[in-house]
């Protein structure tokens, strides 16, 4: 191979450049861009704690789905004793009615994209 040294050095420089945002984030310890979901609700507390919701809201939604549809249990008791109707549109979106600023902010960032929940479940503001 001719000019092997130059090619390999060039490749290394190229790789370092193209992965530089990753190195930068690792060095600085925080991301340059973080999603900023906007919370517009008047409620003070969610159906579960904020940390839990941030990490596990998809598990909770799956659990609600199975409980409500398959087991006919439709009431969720929050840790503080409050009761909520297990309803994506009625309960979740009642508070977080700004889907584009709330759901999509993180979902687009983490490349989870658009979950197909919205193919069937109504988004209040989008209803005519």
């Amino acid at each position, binding site marked *: 191979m001719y000019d092997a040294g130059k090619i390999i050095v060039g490749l290394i420089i190229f790789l370092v450049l193209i992965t530089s945002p990753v190195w930068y984030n690792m060095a600085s310890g925080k991301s340059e861009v973080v999603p900023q979901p906007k919370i517009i609700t008047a409620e003070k507390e969610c159906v579960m704690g904020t940390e839990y919701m941030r990490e596990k809201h998809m598990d909770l939604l799956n659990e609600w*789905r199975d409980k409500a549809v398959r087991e*006919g249990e439709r*009431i969720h008791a929050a840790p503080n004793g409050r009761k909520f109707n297990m309803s994506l*549109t009625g309960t979740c979106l009642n508070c977080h009615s700004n889907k584009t600023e709330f759901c999509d902010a993180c979902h687009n960032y983490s490349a989870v994209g658009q979950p197909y929940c919205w193919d069937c479940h109504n988004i209040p503001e989008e209803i005519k």
Partner: protein
Amino acid sequence: MGIDRRKFLTIAGLTAASVIGRKALGDSLSVAPESNLLPEENRLIGHRWAMVVDLRKCKEQHNCTKCIDACNAVHNIPQFDNPKDEVKWIWKEHFKEAFPNQEKEYILEGLLETPITVMCNHCDNPPCVRVCPTQATWKREDGIVMMDMHRCIGCRYCVAACPYGSRSFNWRDPRPFIKEINKDYPTRTRGVVEKCNFCAERLARGQMPACVEACEEKALIFGDLEDPDSEVRALLRENFAIRRKPNLGTNPEVYYIV
């Protein structure tokens, strides 16, 4: 003949095991499973939900579609132009198609020409449940044959299995074809099967099915078959009622008073 040591130990061991087992089982049965769920206070609870359709009253109101309109509005049922795309939960059928095996020479005057209100029969022995590969359709303990759209893969085995044509497939995205969306109930997506669910979501809130509520003539009566004092049982006691295609052995639980 005496009892030898081996036999004595066997009997003693089995007795002890059964006592301990029953105690353990009894304890686990009496203690409610740990759950953060509470039963809804005013929901309607039945042991075997059933519907009675009083065809005499239906006959008087020949072109009445209140029950159908109410169901369509509550469940966001799309109205397609092409009958091949049709989605039906409750609809009208000719007598001959609804009851093909009935001896019908001298039945109540005019009934043969009356459109018969039909819906999912919520059979005791539902063929659709048996064929569903994902258990997206199943029979609840109170007899309602439910659909879980989340789990439906659109294979349409159930459509083929249902002898009443009660299941509809969403060939197209239904949303643009719903005149006014009821936000309390989801729409469906393309590629799933749907059908009447006896308004399970309304029963959970303590309401009667939408069609029953909408029928001003009280031709549709909904109730618990296992409750001897229920309205459906009283009607079935006092009137002659038929069911659709009883010879198939699906044991439908929608009764028609003729």
